[in-house]
């Protein structure tokens, strides 16, 4: 493979891995924040235990999101200096806003949340998880402003040294960014909903002692995923209309091509359809509290369905980004012209280093998630509140 192909594959693997972890953390943060609100406002023991159990899984997953995100941020400068040079005035600013206005606050407050159990006043502690959740949304927004610009470059004009920002309002309200933002938020909630339902189903299937705990959690998962799927269908449909208008070459790749973009789109639609019909069934079954704890075949299906949102998220993303090729900024700069002037040796070393590190990390993350998911919640009535790490 040449430098361009390796640089693309490296970025795709980093961004793809990052997106997988972000999908779950975005949705799970929201669920945990709501659970903790109920625990705090209602002084409810079961909600407090649910906050801690699902919160711990959230934190394990979040660590992976951070490290893949770090690599991504630096890779833009390392491998794609042509992009920074050409579009830095727009893309660079939105990435800077993401790090400063969103991530900086998100990460600081996450540290306070994780290590602040039992130290911070409980209302202040509740505030920290809401700050984390809202800044995670802000983070997604700023990243999608950058990505939306690459799909549909508005609000900028070519100058002697690359693009200049001419209309910040147009960049910030770019429909390609806003619709993707709502779509990703909905997708995050779908992922979290299926995760909650699937892990809970495992415990109910195994008849572990926590029937009440996991019965409730399963219902939360089902009733979060169903409306979120509906929202992701609406926002996804609107994106398809938008693509037909503003990215005709992507539309052609979707309707007639035989490349990766079309495969991604079809896989995404298939996974979505499967989740949609399954979710209708889930809502009906979850109406009965008895069925929730006894329907063993359904539990197996719920466990098997945990990967479905990931398949849909990743293949939808493949469609979005492959459909943009050969452009990195649609119609203005090709991917080929954006790659840095690197030696083949340098990019090979960096590719090998990151891909092998990520493989180890994904394995460790999976092992730890499974270990803590299997272990179940802390016993009831435990007064001592340790940190979550």
């Amino acid at each position: 493979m040449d430098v361009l192909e390796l640089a693309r594959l490296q970025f795709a693997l980093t961004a793809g891995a990052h997106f997988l972890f972000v999908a779950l953390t975005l949705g799970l943060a929201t669920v945990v924040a709501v659970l903790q609100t109920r625990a705090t406002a209602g002084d409810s023991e079961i909600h407090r235990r649910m906050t801690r159990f699902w919160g711990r899984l959230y934190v394990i997953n979040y660590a992976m999101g951070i490290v893949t995100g770090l690599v991504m941020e630096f890779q833009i400068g390392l491998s794609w200096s042509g992009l920074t040079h050409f579009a830095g005035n727009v893309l660079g600013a939105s990435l800077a806003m993401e790090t400063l206005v969103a991530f900086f606050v998100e990460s600081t407050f996450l540290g306070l949340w994780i290590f602040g159990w039992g130290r911070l006043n409980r209302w202040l502690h509740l505030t920290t998880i809401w700050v984390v959740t809202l800044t995670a949304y802000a983070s997604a927004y700023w990243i999608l402003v950058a990505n939306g610009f690459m799909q549909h470059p508005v609000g900028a004009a070519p100058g002697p040294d690359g693009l200049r920002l001419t209309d910040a309002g147009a960049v910030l309200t770019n429909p390609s960014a806003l619709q993707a933002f709502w779509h990703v938020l909905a997708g995050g909630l779908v992922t979290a909903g299926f995760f909650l339902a699937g892990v809970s189903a495992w415990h109910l299937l195994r008849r572990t002692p926590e029937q009440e705990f996991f019965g409730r959690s399963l219902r939360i998962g089902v009733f979060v995923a169903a409306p979120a799927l509906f929202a992701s269908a609406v926002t996804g449909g609107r994106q398809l209309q938008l693509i037909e208008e503003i990215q005709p070459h992507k539309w052609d790749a979707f309707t007639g091509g035989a490349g990766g973009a079309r495969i991604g789109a079809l896989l995404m639609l298939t996974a979505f359809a499967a989740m949609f019909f399954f979710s209708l069934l889930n809502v009906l079954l979850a109406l009965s509290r008895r069925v929730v704890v006894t329907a063993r075949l359904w539990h197996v299906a719920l466990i098997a369905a945990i990967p479905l949102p990931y398949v849909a998220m990743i293949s939808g993303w493949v469609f979005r980004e492959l459909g943009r090729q050969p452009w990195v900024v649609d119609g203005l700069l090709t991917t080929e012209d954006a790659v840095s002037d690197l030696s083949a040796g340098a990019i090979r070393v960096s590719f090998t280093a990151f891909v092998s590190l990520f493989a180890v990390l994904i394995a460790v993350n999976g092992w730890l998630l499974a270990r803590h998911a299997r272990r179940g919640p802390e016993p009831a009535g435990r007064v001592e509140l340790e940190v979550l790490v």
Partner: protein
Amino acid sequence: MTETLAAVLLGFFAAGYFVLGGADIGAGMLLPFLGRDGGERRQVVAAIVPFFLADEVWLVATAGLLIGAFPDAEARLLPGLLPLVVALLAGWIVRDMGLWTRNRAGGRVWPAVCDTAVTLGSWTVAGSWAWLLAGLFTGSTSVARGADVVLLAGLVVALFVLHGLAFARLRLTGRAYERARAVSGGAGDRATFAVTATLAALLPVAAGARLDLTGSAADGATLDLLVPAVYAMLPLLLAGQVLTWWTFRERVTA
């Protein structure tokens, strides 16, 4: 004018990283020295973990500002420094995963694996910074070589170690504390930290002064939006930091 304000922000965040991130990286380098058995190493890690997220965000912010306010400087610098940046990131990831997951599995093996990851990762991060900064001090923007580079890099690594000791003296008690104190001089804990922190803050400022940032700033229209937005957000950013230091102000006991 806006360019100068942007450069001040860049220097502020970079200095913040070397003062705060530098402290917990230094403590990570000294993990096997400060903690001689599993329990003591657990204590040292417990002294670091409430801070490392709030510390490393300063570097993420610095990189964000570099790409947002000085995109051409980033495009010029990073590809030439690729091997060092890759080593820095790899060390950072390995170290973070050690800190994140040390207490997530029991037994003796997993904590020992994580302690090794924290120590090696911290040395890799400090070494990469030392090499990178030594290059910038000598006016090179690629992987620099030469006796002067080796000497300067050695001094930077020594500063990381000293600063880590000073941080350990603020956070620890018992034997781990005594070990840090025995090798870092007789001055008070806070005074020692003030000195090493000042030196750490000077590192990126001295290196940055040698870079020609003004020629590589983003367009005025971009800076006029970005720079005021960041200044407006600063109080919230700093509030989170202050709250972190206040909440975890107590020393960690064995």
